[in-house]
């Protein structure tokens, strides 16, 4: 169980007890209720608390949103701790504690598939240092050299005398020792807890209704808020008539939230929402009220030919190569806005007084949530605190921007002392997203007389996430994140193909719709652009798409290895079952190498069935293989939902899709079989939550071409007529 650190425990217990006579499922997120008192147990270090009963709490700084990082990071700590895994549970340190302790837990940001790949070293050192201190404490107690003692399975043994003790018995003494400075780490080949396909630590409570999400939180005296923000980005509230709903059941207050939103606070959320729906609001729609998907597409199209662009990757002289080509191939692709559509809509519970502000919220970045709370509260961070609650999905929406936290605090500020839970409706969530950026790309390839790719130019036109969220990180008009998977090198996505004359550049065009980091980020559309175009080039050259790629990947052995793996296991080069066809894709991103082979069929009515996807991942080191497989499967649901259906369109400056009826996502009936091949080659640490998303769509699109001869260049697929020509 992951404890909700520092909940106002007594208050929560009172709520639970009041309902307990009837309810079966209200969870008591409170170790005190089980007779232990965590506050009385000193930590061995920031990462490890061992209680007298030998139970172990491992502190996890990153946020669990389904990706399994809670279990994976605990495995890394427990590995070096030589812990009895059956006694391990986890808890989140709070962002306020991290701040007060000079960031003892490092970065809390949970995105970019960085949870494990960027903290593996210091969390393992935390586990190793704690083990060394526990052993030292036991040795001191026995009056023997620590070098004669060994730790295994939470037990310390002094071999010469045969004496044993447990971590729980020496933890208090260990906590008083000076931490070691030289902390060697175990080689991954010697792992016994890390690297194993262990079950997740947080599964049981997700099967019986006991897992508490932000939307489920109940605090004593808490009120509930529903909100409506101006549907047009850049607009604001002109007026609203609170008197019209003042008498509705349960309504406590109607408040303006900043310049752009209105919220109703009521005793229950349903009553708040019902009253909000009845509230007359007049909007000042602002300068973007005429913007449409068509007008945005025109702006992006112009960017495809613009003289000015920021260069992401250049070699040789692409223009000259194209001018002198025996055969020239050109295509333009496009990728739409998409909403994250987490299953749990945005929410936060806030309590504000002139002295202190507390926020309970599902967040991918507790420290960013704290900063947002502090700013909205008008209080320094030291007087604020954020308690992280499990996320009902994150996918990037709950990381960089905490608009809902600001709103919750601004509402709570208008009701000092009263905790208020703000929950967005699905509709609010859909029209106030931080959307997958919209881009187009024009690709031009040069083939010589033998069908070799001698030149490639790729112009991306469109939105920059970084410009929208971290504009201070734009240098000379260049957003480096735009080039994920296309860069000359680096772990965020090295372009694997050796093309002698290459130019990849970006004409930044930022519509008013706010962009966000969306699971897979820019790797998603870049993989569609490059991998579908590679397929086009192979066909234009009269070559097999696998052989065409292999020749270009000769200097990129890791890219090549995953591609070869999916080709072999996916049956490339052998006849597909009747009526089916296959497509390939590969890319590198988030530190990992990934490839996919999709097998599809398209019936005479043009209906697509995705039968199977074989996917390979090389993340360097693999911490929990069965969870990596789960991430690969899950990533395909996300990636294929995007490819098949994902599209938010703009009319009159606002997003048109408000719920799952107009923003469909993939369901079980459409889910292909997935074979996940894990091929960790060691020596580096790559992410696993995102990279494989990127190969889902291009592998399927290339298979559709193989099946139908139709090349889909504008996503989503729902607009494409796949009937054979």
């Amino acid at each position, binding site marked *: 169980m992951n404890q909700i650190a520092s909940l106002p425990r007594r208050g929560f217990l009172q709520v639970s007890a009041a*309902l307990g006579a*009837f*309810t*079966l*499922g*209200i969870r008591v997120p409170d170790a005190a209720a089980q007779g232990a008192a965590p506050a009385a147990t000193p930590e061995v270090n920031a990462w490890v608390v061992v209680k007298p009963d030998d139970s172990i709490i491992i502190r996890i700084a990153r946020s669990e*949103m*389904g990706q399994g990082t809670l279990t994976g990071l605990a495995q890394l700590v427990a590995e070096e701790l030589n812990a009895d895994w059956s006694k391990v549970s986890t808890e989140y340190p709070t962002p306020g504690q991290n701040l007060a302790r000079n960031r003892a837990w490092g970065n809390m940001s949970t995105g970019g598939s960085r949870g494990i790949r960027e903290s593996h070293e210091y969390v393992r050192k935390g586990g190793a240092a704690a083990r060394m201190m526990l052993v030292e404490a036991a040795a001191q107690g026995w009056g023997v050299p620590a070098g004669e003692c060994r730790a295994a399975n939470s037990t310390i043994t002094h071999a010469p005398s045969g004496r044993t003790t447990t971590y729980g018995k020496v933890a208090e003494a260990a906590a008083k020792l000076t931490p070691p400075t030289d902390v060697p780490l175990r080689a991954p080949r010697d792992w016994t807890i890390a690297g194993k396909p262990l*079950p997740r630590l*947080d*599964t*049981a*409570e*997700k*099967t*019986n*209704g*006991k*897992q*508490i*999400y932000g*939307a*489920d939180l*109940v605090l004593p005296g808490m009120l*509930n808020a529903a909100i409506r923000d101006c549907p047009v980005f850049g607009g604001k509230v002109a007026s609203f008539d609170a008197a019209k709903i003042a008498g509705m*059941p349960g309504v406590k207050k109607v408040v303006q939230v900043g310049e752009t939103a209105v919220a109703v606070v009521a005793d*229950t*959320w*349903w*009553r708040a929402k*019902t009253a909000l729906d009845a509230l007359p609001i007049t909007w000042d729609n602002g300068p973007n009220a005429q913007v449409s998907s068509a007008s945005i597409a025109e702006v992006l199209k112009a960017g495809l030919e613009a003289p000015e662009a920021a260069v992401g990757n250049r070699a040789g002289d692409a223009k000259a190569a194209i001018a002198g080509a025996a055969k020239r191939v050109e295509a333009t692709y496009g990728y739409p806005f998409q909403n994250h559509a*987490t*299953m*749990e*809509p945005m929410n936060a519970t806030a309590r504000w007084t002139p002295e202190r502000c507390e926020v309970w919220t599902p967040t991918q970045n507790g420290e960013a949530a704290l900063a947002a709370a502090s700013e909205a509260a008008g209080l320094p961070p030291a007087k604020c605190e954020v308690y992280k609650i*499990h*996320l*009902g*999905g*994150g996918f990037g929406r709950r990381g960089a921007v905490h608009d809902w936290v600001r709103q919750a605090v601004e509402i709570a500020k208008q009701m000092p002392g009263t905790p208020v839970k703000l929950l967005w409706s*699905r509709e609010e969530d859909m029209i106030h997203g931080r959307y997958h950026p919209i881009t187009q790309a024009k690709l031009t390839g040069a083939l010589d007389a033998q069908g070799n790719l001698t030149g490639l130019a790729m112009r991306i036109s469109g939105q920059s996430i970084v410009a929208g969220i971290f504009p201070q990180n734009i240098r000379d008009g260049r957003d480096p994140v735009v080039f994920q998977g296309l860069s000359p090198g680096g772990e965020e996505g090295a372009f694997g193909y050796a093309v002698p004359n290459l130019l990849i550049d970006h004409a930044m065009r930022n519509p008013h719709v706010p962009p966000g980091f969306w699971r897979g980020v820019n790797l998603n559309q870049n993989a569609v652009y490059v991998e579908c175009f590679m397929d086009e080039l192979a066909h234009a050259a009269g070559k097999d798409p696998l052989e065409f790629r292999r020749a270009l990947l000769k200097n990129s052995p890791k890219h090549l290895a995953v591609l070869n793996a999916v080709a072999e296991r996916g049956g490339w080069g052998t006849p597909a079952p009747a009526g089916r066809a296959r497509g390939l894709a590969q890319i590198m991103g988030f530190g990992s190498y990934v490839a996919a082979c999709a097998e599809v069929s398209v019936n005479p009515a043009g209906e697509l069935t995705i039968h199977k996807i074989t996917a390979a991942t090389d993340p360097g080191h693999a911490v929990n293989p069965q*969870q990596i497989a*789960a991430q690969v*499967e*899950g990533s*395909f*649901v*996300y990636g294929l*939902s995007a490819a098949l259906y994902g599209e938010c369109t703009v009319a009159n400056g606002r997003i048109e899709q408000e*719920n*799952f*009826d107009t923003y469909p*996502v*993939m*369901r*079980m*009936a459409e*889910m292909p*079989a*997935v074979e996940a091949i894990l091929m960790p080659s060691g020596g580096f640490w790559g992410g696993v939550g995102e990279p494989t998303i990127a190969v889902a769509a291009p592998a399927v699109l290339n298979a559709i071409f193989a099946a139908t001869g139709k090349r889909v260049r504008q996503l989503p697929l729902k607009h494409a007529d796949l009937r054979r020509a």
Partner: protein
Amino acid sequence: MARLNINGRVVEITVEDDTPLLWAIREQVGLTGTKYGCGVAQCGACTVHVDGVATRSCSMPVSAFNETQKIVTIEGLSPNGDHPLQKAWVALDVPQCGYCQSGMIMAAAALLTANPKPSDADIRGEITNICRCGTYNRVQAAIKQAAGGNQANG
């Protein structure tokens, strides 16, 4: 005012007639295992059993219910979280974020009541709940496991 029979007990709640059953369960009764996802019966996160039938509680007003209808939520599916589906879910480590899983399990439980040995096609046809993390394949495998193995293919 409404009288609801939830998880084997009759509870009297004070609420407007048009309040969706979901919100009565969550806010008046205090059982939060049943989730709000869309409010328009699209996603299935709010699935409960009404007399054994999987029902999307976000789109049914409490006025449609009385104490003779047996409503079961995820909290009441089994005494100790040990319904065969819950055990299979744990054995196969199905959930990711977990938010949709109460509804998934309730939909699956109703399916198994109606069809104890569902084929893959039955499962894929009947379970229409949305999961954004992408647990569908493990959900399907867990339902098969709970149903007693893999003999019913197709």
